[in-house]
């Protein structure tokens, strides 16, 4: 029996195990929504903007380890997805985005709500498709999920013209897919692994830098195994946070621009760096020539293009982290690193702040960290608050810190928290936001309420754009410009208007009880904390400095 391609799309999604789609309808994607109406397996979550749908899919994917799916109509719907797609691309998050497109016959004529979304997203999708033949739908869906989730994960877009969606076809799910040009390498090269083992044997000041790749490859056990076998300490990138428990004695904390002195100095003094699934972004390396100047660098990544892209590499290994790390540990033994530990022990593990005057964001995060014992899933927006969360919340579980590291997208956190809560309803989900970021996607409080999600929102209200203000302090001689809001709404009333419990605190002594109330509240909760915009993120590595030259550390 023939069915429409739109129905085939839904069937193919079901066959891929999709049970949740975040989206927003419109004319060009009408046939797909009509088919989705009949699906018993797939729940659709209507967000309040397409960007939020893409971020929610991304939060869902990062917490669940599955592929997140979002959907939008053509034109403005599709362009609203763009920020979410680019965010997912930069952080290697597997999502499949489905967009409606105007009918094939009028493509290219600038008709109502037409935009070339495959062209627009080509630079920041792992792959994308404009579906020209209805029969191709099942194959394309299968390929899209395969490409998104294998190798280095990333977003894939499927653009479906309306007339193609309405065409009737015989539905047949394809068997094995074979993409000649896409064969991710899983096994590491045995000779290189041997060399790695040798270097590890020889090293006296080794450091592992674990990146987001460990989280996405779900290689935390293999990482732990290597650490326990060898005794090598671990620093993480921002994206790697959580892949190694921060309460472990060998955890150095986060490295890089706002990293811990311990991680940054250890890296600078190291004689061997084992970089696992980390892409050496400029935020991690600081001035590249001053990065790990004494070390041989062993770089393991599933994406060969990352190796040697930003820093010189002595031993490159392309492969899946789980496989490669366990191959390496198999042949490694415990090292005597006591001198190295002694050296490291003397360097401070955390940034410092002064607990006086107004309530400090750092202490709020510390209190929440203690009270949740690292068991919550934390999402953040982008700004100072994001860096403080990275520094002061003690993460012990992989995939529990969900933040936009690569693109640095304000407005990411709240919708990502929605996705996270769907992925793991049993866990406490907390979004930390600055008042700037919060205002970018606060309409998603409606989605939270509509879906009975208990999302906790901690809002640091400093009346402006703190991190940009800090940059202006350092780089523009304190000429503060466009970083203070002249108007802000009453956030407590705003949350209450959505039916969400909310509270505002201004003093230190209110803090513990307020956090208790937030955490014990069954539903969502907004905790607005009045903080000082002059509070800077320290330590900080200035532009053009190596990472061991930190100020305020």
């Amino acid at each position, binding site marked *: 029996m023939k069915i429409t391609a739109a129905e085939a799309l839904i069937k193919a999604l079901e066959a891929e195990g999709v049970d949740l789609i975040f989206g927003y309808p419109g004319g060009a994607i009408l046939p797909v929504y009509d088919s989705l109406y009949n699906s018993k397996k797939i729940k659709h979550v209507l967000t309040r903007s397409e960007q939020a749908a893409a971020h929610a899919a991304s939060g869902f994917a990062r917490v669940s380890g599955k592929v997140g799916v979002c959907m939008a109509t053509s034109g403005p719907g599709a362009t609203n997805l763009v920020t979410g797609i680019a965010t997912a691309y930069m952080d290697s998050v597997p999502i499949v985005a489905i967009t409606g497109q105007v009918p094939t016959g009028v493509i290219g004529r600038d008709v109502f709500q037409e935009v070339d979304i*495959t*062209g627009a997203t*080509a*630079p920041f999708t*792992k*792959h994308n498709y*404009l579906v020209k033949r209805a029969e191709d739908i099942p194959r394309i869906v299968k390929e899209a999920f395969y*490409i998104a989730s294998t190798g280095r994960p990333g977003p894939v877009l499927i653009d479906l013209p309306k007339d193609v969606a309405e065409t009737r076809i015989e539905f047949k799910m394809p068997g094995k897919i074979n*993409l*000649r*040009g*896409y*064969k991710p*390498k899983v096994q590491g090269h045995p000779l290189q692994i041997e060399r790695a083992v040798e270097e590890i044997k020889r090293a006296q000041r080794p450091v592992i830098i674990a990146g987001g790749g460990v989280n996405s490859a779900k290689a935390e056990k293999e990482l732990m195994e290597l650490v326990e076998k060898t005794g090598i300490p671990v620093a993480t990138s921002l994206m790697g946070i959580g892949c190694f428990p921060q309460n472990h004695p060998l955890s150095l904390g986060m490295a890089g621009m706002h990293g811990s002195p311990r991680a940054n100095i250890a890296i600078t003094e190291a004689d061997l760096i084992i970089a696992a699934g980390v892409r050496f972004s400029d935020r991690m390396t600081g001035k590249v020539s001053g990065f790990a100047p004494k070390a041989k660098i062993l770089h393991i990544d599933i*994406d*060969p*293009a990352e190796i*040697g*892209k930003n820093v010189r590499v002595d031993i490159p290994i392309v492969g899946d982290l789980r496989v490669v790390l366990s191959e390496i540990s198999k042949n490694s033994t415990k090292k005597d690193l006591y001198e190295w530990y002694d050296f490291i022990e003397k360097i401070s593990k955390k940034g410092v702040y002064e607990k006086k005057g107004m309530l400090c964001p750092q202490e709020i995060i510390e209190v929440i960290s203690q009270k949740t014992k690292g068991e919550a899933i934390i999402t953040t927006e982008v700004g100072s608050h994001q860096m403080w969360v990275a520094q002061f919340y003690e993460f012990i579980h992989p995939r529990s810190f969900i933040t936009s590291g690569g693109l640095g997208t304000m407005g990411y956190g709240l919708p990502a928290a929605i996705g996270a809560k769907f992925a793991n309803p049993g866990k406490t989900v907390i979004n930390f936001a600055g008042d700037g970021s919060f205002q970018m996607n606060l309409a998603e409080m409606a989605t939270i309420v509509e879906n009975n999600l208990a999302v906790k929102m901690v809002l640091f209200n400093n009346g402006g754009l703190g991190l940009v203000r800090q940059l202006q302090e350092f780089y523009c001689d304190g000429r503060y410009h466009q970083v203070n809001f002249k108007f802000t709404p009453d956030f407590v009333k705003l949350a209450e208007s959505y039916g969400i419990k909310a509270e505002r605190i201004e003093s230190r002594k209110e803090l513990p009880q307020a956090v208790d109330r937030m955490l014990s509240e069954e539903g969502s909760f907004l905790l607005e904390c009045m903080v000082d915009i002059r509070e800077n993120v320290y330590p900080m590595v200035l532009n053009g400095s190596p990472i061991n030259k930190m100020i305020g550390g």
Partner: protein
Amino acid sequence: MKTILSVLVENHPGVLSRVAGLFSRRGFNIDSLAVGTTENPEISRMTIVVEGDEYIVEQVKKQLNKLVDVIKVSKISSDDSVSRELVLIKVDAEPKNRSEIIQIAEIFRANIVDVSRRSMIIELTGDKDKINAFEELVRPFGIKELVRTGLIAMNRGPKTIKVDEEEKD
């Protein structure tokens, strides 16, 4: 430094723009790019001449390989390969200059493919040096229009660049 890359790609719409887009986005310089189908109609072959040092060429290769529609990227060594470019040149050909131009064309084994009262079109294939030399010689007569295809190249001897379906990487 110039490097010749031979790139086998799926003959799908949009692949050329993806490849070209990659160059502009990553700030790589393309010297020339020539595309056509291969003996297998499903596969096209692009010959790309890249300007840049070893690091750049390595990056170009790796980034190209990341594209799902790119099947294979190979470097063509300039000493062990045949490379050609086709050029059409429309020159001013006053009757008094005509025989001289024809003579030059003969020396270069170029073909005269169109003649009118005041101009001719000359077709020439060859490597870059030959084409440049020819261009210099006819320039004094006046070049009205010139079009080059960009380089295509192939390794000498039995070595081939082919899709190996069994290939592991």
